[in-house]
């Protein structure tokens, strides 16, 4: 009985080995693909750090973070990143002030008030806002929103953070609305039924049960919106003015980190010059900012995931 069995099993074993080798190779290839993501991050950080290191050989880190002027391309060069940071933060804050309330209300409306059909039609249309090239929004801010604001407040300069921020806010409404709506829809129906069964109205259910239950998802949406706002380029480059100014006054114009990078990149800065390095140093600051937002968002999602 034993002997013939051996015969039938050994070719099978050989086949097993061949199969296993093939499986390993495939897994390795797939893993390499997944590692591309890691490699990209390392490449980004590497490139930014590499050029920034040269930059910081010329410029002291202390000056970089404390000086109040940013004029690396002028003869009288100053290297204080703060004016760019203030511009970035101000425009982002305005954008969020617009997008967070409107986006959240829209999300609640779509998820709890609109009919299924309305939601399924409106949401994709809203998401189209994401697909509009941001240059278009930039010129929309400069040629449409700014004059509109000027008709209310004539003292407003042509380049101001207010109009850029507002348009940027409108631009990121869909992110907040769509992601928050997803989060609210993920709240199990049993939770809603529980509330309605208590005699709650739609509004009460939405505000007191659904939104709190979806908090983590909603906050994660906000965080994503923050990093979008901070990283948005063309709108601010076109509409906020490109003059680095240390100000948090939305009625003034100012440059953001992104606007500075793209402004410099538009001319062909010679590789190796301090100006070339300065955009990488600015990029590094931007990267650190968005990275920290992303990590906070990741942490929030992880911490609160699947509570029901």
């Amino acid at each position, binding site marked *: 009985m034993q002997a013939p069995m051996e015969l039938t099993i050994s070719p099978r074993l050989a086949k097993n080995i061949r199969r296993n080798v093939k499986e390993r190779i495939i897994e390795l290839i797939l893993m390499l693909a997944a590692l591309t993501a890691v490699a990209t*991050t390392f490449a980004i950080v590497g490139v930014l750090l590499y050029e920034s290191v040269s930059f910081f050989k010329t410029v002291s880190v202390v000056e970089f973070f404390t000086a109040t002027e940013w004029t690396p391309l002028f003869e009288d060069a100053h290297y204080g990143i703060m004016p760019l940071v203030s511009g970035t933060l101000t425009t982002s804050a305005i954008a969020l002030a617009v997008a967070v309330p409107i986006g959240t209300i829209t999300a609640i409306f779509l998820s709890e008030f609109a009919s299924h059909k309305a939601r399924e039609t409106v949401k*994709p*249309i*809203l*998401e189209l806002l994401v697909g509009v090239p941001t240059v278009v929004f930039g010129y929309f801010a400069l040629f449409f929103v700014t004059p509109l604001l000027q008709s209310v407040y004539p003292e407003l300069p042509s380049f101001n953070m207010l109009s850029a921020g507002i348009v940027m806010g409108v631009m990121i409404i869909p992110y907040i609305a769509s992601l928050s709506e997803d989060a609210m829809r993920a709240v199990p129906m049993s939770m809603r039924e529980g509330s309605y069964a208590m005699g709650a109205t739609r509004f009460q259910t939405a505000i007191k049960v659904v939104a709190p239950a979806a908090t983590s998802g909603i906050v994660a949406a906000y965080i994503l919106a923050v990093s979008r706002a901070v990283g948005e380029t063309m709108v601010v480059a076109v509409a906020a003015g490109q003059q680095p100014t240390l100000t948090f006054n939305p009625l003034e114009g100012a440059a953001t980190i992104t606007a500075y990078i*793209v402004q410099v*990149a538009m001319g062909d800065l010679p590789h190796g010059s301090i100006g070339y390095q300065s955009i990488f140093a600015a990029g590094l600051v931007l990267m650190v900012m968005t990275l920290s937002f992303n990590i906070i968002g990741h942490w929030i999602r992880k911490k609160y995931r699947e509570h029901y």
Partner: protein
Amino acid sequence: MEHKASVIENLAEVRAMIKRHKRNDTLFAVIGLCALMLGLITLMLLFWQLIADGYPKFTIDFLTEFPSRRAGQAGLLSAWVGSFLVMSVTFLTAVPVGVAAGLYLEEYAPKNWFTDLIEINVSNLAGVPSIIYGLLALGLFVYILDLGQSILTAGLTLGLLILPIVIVSTREAIRAIPVSIREAAYGVGATKWQVVYDHVFKYSYGGILTGVIIGMARALGETAPIITIGALTFIAFLPPSPITAEPPFLNFEWLSSGFTVMPIQMFNWLSRPDHAFHINAAATGALIIIVTLLMNGTAIWLRYKIRKNIKW
């Protein structure tokens, strides 16, 4: 009877209260509708403005003419061909890598710190501003790898930019496939790769495609990273054709060719002194939005179709 009276009295009170509460419902519905309309109206306004400004250029000539110093004759030919070629490179790089990465993370990756690292990486990359990708491309592709300001550089840059989108949508599509299908396949003796390829991938590619299209639509409108690699140029010719008459019939010279893309051409026209060019720019903007709309529409339609056809 006393009981009955109290019940009814109580009811009247309850009714009054409900009426009050329902007023909030209505109020919020109105506010919500306004909030929603704000986004929609902005989009409409933008779109309408572009159409109104650009409609004189809605002609075939606009698509078949090269850019020109005369606004009236200027066309989009080199820009849309450039966009198409750049998008092809983007597609060919981001999709295989992204799908493979998604399959790995969802089906293969053990749960340990290493895959956690990859996960955090992917979600971070999704939030990295596009201009940073531009800097990466400038530092790495243009200078270190010396690829120049070419279609290849732009395609790779945008490919990296949408990679996280492809990975995430792949993973989501895969997650929709029930365990029971996997177990069924394993149950008849399939190997891991057979399960992954024959089932997981094949049943999810519709969902993957949806994500890919949305990513591509986004890449199509990207301006900042392309400017950053320094591609703001007058190009009034087409790159060498990828297909040739003689063997080997394929030609890769176009990859290293200079190029322009639609948003860049639009940007270029907008910065002209002559206002006639702004009409071209508006028409280009409208065209980009229309293409984006079509792409997103396709994605939505696909998603709808998949949901309808496959019910697990």
